[in-house]
């Protein structure tokens, strides 16, 4: 079996998993109490029963479960999630509004966390047992065990309440609602970037501190394994400088579990950070997810679970393919 076979196998597996997720999603919400009609109309106040029938037909509730399932799969594959019970807007447009905010928050923090975590992890492994190593391990454990919402509260207390360095709440200054910066002028662009960054700083910092420790510990562990290998000894014996040995030889070979972890993290980026977004009133996916769940907004919840699962499956698929390209052992395995 060559690379092509491996890719084919992963693709089939991924497609099966997607259908599995859609089916599960369908079943969960089929079992859950209530149906859309209950949310839309109060049957006691409905004068004309034919209206109810019309609604039932419109939502295909008169069809047998299998027909509805087929209809459901079709809608899921075309990203047709219906309308939010709460706002009445199409769910897909609700998502579009928030996904940019979430990606700017989690994208920045995750990329920073990966870069910092991997770099520090490599150096920690290289200086194993030293002061640098133990400081790094301890601090990443400490940051990782602090609850993010509490970190958020403390940051708000220090940097907003005491020091007044950063604003809190929402993705941009409140004043922009009335007069947004003029993006045609250079000063306006600078003002826009400054405003956005000042609002980004605290939540990004919280998420970064929470995330980087995991990458650091993972990189450190795999690097410690890799550094005992013979090819590292060979590389050192050749007289290569330490940085080349660490990054070009050891890290490349140690990177497989790291790539898997990165892929998984990237997959979850889309779902946002429920807690951090709640603490900072950040209008992102996480906050929306929480509100949808609490308001039992079923169309929104279905879309959320489907898209998150889809993203994670996709990320895993990409990481599998990547690993297949990087590690020649896997495609023949």
């Amino acid at each position, binding site marked *: 079996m060559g690379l092509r076979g491996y890719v084919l196998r992963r693709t089939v597996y991924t497609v099966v998993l997607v259908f599995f997720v859609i089916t599960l999603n369908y079943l969960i919400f089929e079992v859950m109490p209530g149906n859309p009609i209950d949310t839309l109309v109060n049957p006691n106040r409905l004068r004309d029963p034919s209206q109810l029938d019309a609604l039932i037909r419109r939502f295909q509730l008169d069809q047998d479960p299998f027909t509805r399932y087929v209809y459901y799969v079709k809608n899921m594959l075309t990203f047709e999630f219906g309308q939010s019970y709460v706002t009445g807007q199409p769910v897909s447009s609700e998502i579009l509004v928030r996904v940019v905010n979430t990606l700017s928050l989690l994208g920045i923090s995750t990329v920073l966390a990966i870069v910092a975590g991997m770099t520090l992890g490599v150096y920690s492994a290289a200086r194993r047992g030293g002061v640098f190593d133990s400081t790094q391990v301890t601090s990443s*454990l400490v940051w990782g065990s602090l609850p993010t919402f509490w970190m958020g509260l403390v940051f708000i207390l220090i940097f907003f309440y005491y020091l007044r360095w950063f604003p809190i709440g929402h993705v941009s200054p409140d004043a922009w609602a009335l007069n947004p910066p003029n993006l045609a002028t250079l000063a306006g662009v600078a003002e826009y970037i400054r405003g956005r960054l000042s609002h980004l700083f605290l939540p990004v910092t919280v998420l970064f501190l929470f995330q980087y420790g995991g990458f650091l510990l993972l990189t450190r562990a795999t690097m410690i394994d890799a550094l005992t290998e013979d090819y590292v000894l060979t590389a050192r014996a050749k007289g290569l400088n330490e940085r080349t040995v660490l990054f070009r030889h050891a890290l490349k070979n140690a990177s497989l579990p790291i790539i898997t972890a990165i892929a998984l993290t990237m997959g979850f980026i889309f779902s946002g950070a429920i807690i951090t977004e709640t603490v900072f009133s950040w209008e992102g996916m996480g906050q929306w997810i929480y509100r949808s*769940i609490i308001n039992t907004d079923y169309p929104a919840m279905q879309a959320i679970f489907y898209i998150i699962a889809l993203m994670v499956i996709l990320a895993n698929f990409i990481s599998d393919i990547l690993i297949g390209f990087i590690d020649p052992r896997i495609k023949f395995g």
Partner: protein
Amino acid sequence: MEAREVRFRRGLGKILHAWLLLARSKRALFGISIIVFYSFLAIAAPILTPYDPSFDSSLAFDHAVPEWYRTLGIQKGLSGNLVAGPQDVSNFNSPSSLTGWNFSTSNEQVVSFQYSSAEGGKAPGSLLVSIAPRPAGTSYGTFNFTIQRSFKYIYEGPPGKFVSSLSVRLRVTGDEPVIFGSAPSSGTVVADDPRLRYVDSNGNNVWDSGEALVFDVNNNGAFESGELIVSGQAPAPGTPVKDDSRILFVDSNVNSLWNPGEVVIYDKNANMQYDQPSTPISTRSFIDQDYNRIRFVDSNDNNAWDDGEPVVYDKVGSGFFSSEDIVISGSEPGSGTTLKDDPKLRFVDTNNNNRWDAETSNTPTETVVYDANSNGLYDTSETVLAGTAPSAGVSVESAKGSFRIWEQHYPADGVYPPSWFSPDPPVDSRSSKWKGIYFGGESSLIRPEDQVFGQQVKYTLRLTIIVVDRDPTYPLQASFNIDDYSLTILGTSFGIFGTDQQGRDLFSQLVFGARVSLLVGLVSAALGVVIGLFVGLLAGFKGGVVDEGLMRFTDMLLVLPGLPLLIVLVAVLSPGIWTIIAVLGFLGWMGFARVIRAQAVSLKERPFVEASKSVGAGTSHIITRHILPNVMGLTYVTLATSVPGAITAEAALSFLGLFDPFLISWGRMLFNADVFQGFFLPWWILPPGLSIAILSLSFILIGYALDDILNPRLRQRR
């Protein structure tokens, strides 16, 4: 028996050995001591704090600052709790409890104060104010009596809230009696039935209290056996019975005839309706503050009198300038201008009446000076504001008065505040019930300039009851019982970590929160580990379809987003502590199951398993004797490292609002802080958050140390 003992000893030895290994690691020691500390908090919680974390509210004002902020002087302007009167809520419950109170009345011939052990509000014993019996035809007119107590307000800042309460019971006799049944409401129309007749024992042709009342069915003017006795002793048959047109009844069924069961009263004033006790009272409660009436207008707002600032005599005692006040020096301020107190503004009390003579004369002559060095004496360098300069060394005093900072009225026939205290009135008496009177206010609702308890001076808590003797036709005999009179001041500082939005003790919440966190962490981690172990061993050992099915299911659960799923499940199943534990346990086994499966797959191919199989050992034997012991190390490590996840997950759920409504956990403390304007109070948000972090960290550290000990291969490499 012996074998069991040996096994037990060996087990003990193993534990001791593991403990010694664990104790070698500094991290593990740190972790263990933290866990021991929090376990102690959790177990000893009821001993450590007298308060219930959820239900003991209003222990102090809401959002109170820790008490040590006040005692150590970290924050200025704070106050603590204060109870004016005995610390015991039920006062007047012993004769000695009357000391410390002052009693006075406008009519000393009539009103007397004494202790009564017979009745009480919350506990037996009360203050009995009796009014001397008055015969018919005269009148006491309007008179009043007052109960008061002075206390010193000892805190430098105003309180958050003050609450005063008392129970009053009025007993009036000599009004329209109820002969049978329970008293109807005042003004009830009553009807006559001539067959309701009485035995005129004293022959005065009028019914008197105690005389028997019968229902003369055949209307023949004599009592026969078989006729109904409505009230009193049954007379001998043949006893003559008389009609009194004032014996009337409440015609409940509107048939104009008395029926057994209907209430019978004696309508003294023959107005054909039942009248309540005819003594209207009005109750007033006050808090007065000692007050320097010589005040100034603080033009430059520095809280001290400066040369040139107008000085006035606040005759009204309002704290604001009004036309009745007298300007001592400077220009006349506008009406309503705030007048401030400077204790250095004093006067020479020439006529020794303890008042500045503006109280008695329109042209005051007593000298007012500014006692710059506040030594109570006039020195020649000090400023004279009015009058002639006294000789040096003359003593100067504050113009004493009192300032009513708070007043509450209860009109005679007005509605009392709705709480009723026990006991219910005795059946025969028509005295009123104990009326609970409750009043109070929040200082934050009052303007800062007339802040309640704004100064560390003497205050007086005073209750005045005004009695109006309106109807001289009938004799009056009245008494009052007064009990549970106290003023509680809720301070702005309390306890070790202050209070939350309902005035509940945050330290108690922290201590009891340790229970929730440890319970959730340990139980749900154990649940997750057990499930993981079961699924992993089953998949790994069985292989084939079972393995494939279980592992794909595991993969799928791993792909599902964790926190949203958690929120959905907890929200749907309604949040309770056991729901949260179960959901966390059932969502926390997947990673561990995969690891165990891998171990089981490799272990089952080992020679010792094959050997065991070849001698005919069953699956359960192999699993419990060969595979399980080999994965136990990993299990302990996972147990330790999955506790923090559960603790933080519970905290996160609580922070989002999905908490057990009957418990206060650390996460819920932070939720409260976030929702109820506590997020900027460090003593509120730091302790629970740090506790979550430290407790989680200590479990992680123990997990790492266990990993070192139980997986020696890794230890060598590290």
